[in-house]
């Protein structure tokens, strides 16, 4: 069944159980960053219980009636079990909001579909031509009316983006407070800041489209962090070590020919810029005091030989304290806005953080923010199915 904008139907007419279904969302939006969410609303259309906003940071509602689950082939999705929702929740609104620049008129084709198991029961298709200056959209909603759950294809939105959307649901968005800059490095020029894309949330990805027949330039990955030495000097810290933090940037890579390894200071595998793997680490900042930080360079001239690169940061020495280290990773490519990732989801029991995955997608560089924390190289390798063998090493 194809749903037109404004069209309504009864859930029971689409899904035999009338209660269990999965909503899948996909929007073709090159160069745009989209966040999807499901708002569980009360009879007044308000988000009276913030736990019923289901999104990447809150993957399930308390009742389990809404949880993140994307059907095969979709970018995002929500598994819905209406019977588990409390009576106070009478409306589930699926939304898409732009993170970063752009408007919804720039999206390509998109859809929200209702899946009954693996069967598609209904689809609401739309495109950028349906929108103008909107930056956040209400795509579709399930709602209870006269004790019957129904569906409505909305396709309406707000120029004010996520903040306007949340305000519509009776909530407020906290103003983002940027972290204080590290003390030693010089402040970046404002011109760079204006263009900067901050991938704030895990799972965001953007594709740096490659023009046909033109090679990429240098992809520069820079790690800057703040030494936390001297923060606590005491008897116990003396026993544990010299209380100095050493943070390393590195990567796992896989080439098109199947060769796999790592580039990192540990083990002195600094890589090579002009011959395979075309990835090189140019310095090992052991104190966090270097103004330039640590730089990992990927030779974009040879991007066609690289299948994927997993960028990570690793606390080699010192107790893991990501909050105090204030680590920031920036990715730069010629002709592209700078991308910044802050290591802000603190897991101080895990010294390793996988930051971003760069994948070769038909010659384009697809970047996905990860920020998942691991106990070590082996854990991270297994989590991302790299398949390297790991032995313990140390810097002399």
């Amino acid at each position, binding site marked *: 069944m194809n749903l*037109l*904008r*404004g*069209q*309504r139907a009864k859930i029971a007419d689409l899904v035999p159980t009338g209660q269990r279904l999965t909503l899948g969302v996909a929007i073709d939006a090159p160069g745009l960053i989209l966040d999807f969410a499901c708002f569980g609303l009360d009879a007044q259309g308000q988000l009276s219980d913030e736990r019923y906003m289901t999104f990447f940071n809150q993957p399930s509602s308390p009742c389990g009636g809404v949880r993140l689950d994307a059907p095969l082939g979709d970018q995002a999705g929500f598994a819905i079990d209406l019977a588990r929702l409390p009576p106070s929740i009478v409306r589930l609104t699926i939304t898409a909001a732009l993170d970063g620049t752009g408007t919804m008129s720039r999206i390509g084709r998109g859809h929200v579909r209702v899946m009954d198991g693996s069967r598609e029961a209904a689809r609401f298709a739309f495109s950028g031509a*349906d*929108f*103008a*200056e*909107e930056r956040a959209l*209400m795509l579709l909603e399930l709602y209870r*009316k*006269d004790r019957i759950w*129904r569906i*409505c*294809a*909305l396709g*309406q*939105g*707000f*120029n*004010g983006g996520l903040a*306007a959307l949340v305000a*519509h649901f009776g909530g407020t968005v906290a103003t983002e407070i940027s972290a204080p800059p590290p003390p030693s490095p010089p402040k970046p020029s404002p011109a760079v800041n204006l263009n900067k894309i901050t991938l704030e949330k895990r799972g965001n990805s953007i594709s740096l489209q490659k023009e046909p027949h033109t090679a990429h330039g240098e992809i520069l990955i820079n790690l800057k962090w703040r030494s936390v030495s001297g923060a606590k000097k005491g008897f116990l810290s003396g026993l544990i070590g010299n209380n100095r933090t050493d943070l390393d940037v590195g990567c796992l890579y896989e080439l098109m020919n199947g060769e796999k390894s790592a580039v990192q200071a540990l083990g002195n595998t600094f890589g090579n810029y002009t011959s395979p793997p075309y990835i090189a680490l140019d310095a090992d900042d052991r104190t966090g005091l270097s103004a330039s930080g640590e730089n990992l360079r990927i030779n974009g001239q040879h991007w066609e030989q690289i299948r994927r690169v997993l960028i990570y940061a690793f606390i080699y020495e010192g107790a893991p304290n990501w909050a105090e280290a204030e680590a920031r990773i920036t990715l730069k490519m010629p002709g592209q806005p700078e991308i910044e990732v802050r290591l802000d989801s603190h897991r101080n029991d895990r010294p390793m953080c996988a930051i971003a995955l760069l994948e070769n997608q038909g010659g384009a560089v697809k970047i996905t923010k990860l920020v998942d924390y691991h106990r070590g190289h082996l854990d991270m390798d297994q989590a991302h199915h790299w398949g390297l063998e790991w032995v313990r090493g140390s810097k002399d």
Partner: protein
Amino acid sequence: MAISLNKGGNVNLSKEAPNLENVLIGLGWDARATDGQAFDLDASVFMVKSDGKVPNDSHFIFYNQLKSPDGSVEHTGDNLTGDGEGDDESVQVTLSRVPAEIQRLVIVVTIHDADARRQNFGQVSNAFVRIVNRDNHQEVVRFDLSEDYSTETAMIFGEIYRHGGDWKFRAVGQGYAGGLRALALQHGVNVG
């Protein structure tokens, strides 16, 4: 206590409100809360004979012709935004002055410029039609259309019709494509 009708239901106005004479047809809907093109909805009344056609074009009461020649039906004006409490548009009817040949008053709402604005009734929320006794301000009957929306651009909300010597009201909730023009043609109006 007003009667609430479902789609297709009807009520005998003369029995519910004895001696009903001065009637207000109140129509309402919520404007969109989102950004994008505004909605402009228009109410109209076709005064039709038993064959479903108007006797002549002056019995099509709409934004450009607010009053019937006999004075029995009067549109009280266009509300461009749909803001505010209560009715967005209303039509006043003096039942005793409705000419004998007029069998039904067909109450329709259309979305102005719907095709160009890519709008339809499915995007309108909380639409209703209600019949009020103007002499005592009592609501006699109400029809909430919210679940009978269609993706069409014109909709017959309801009709007031003669039944024996009584007046009745029927909740219609039927959508049509083609906007006001199509409905006018269907009811025998010569559209220029």
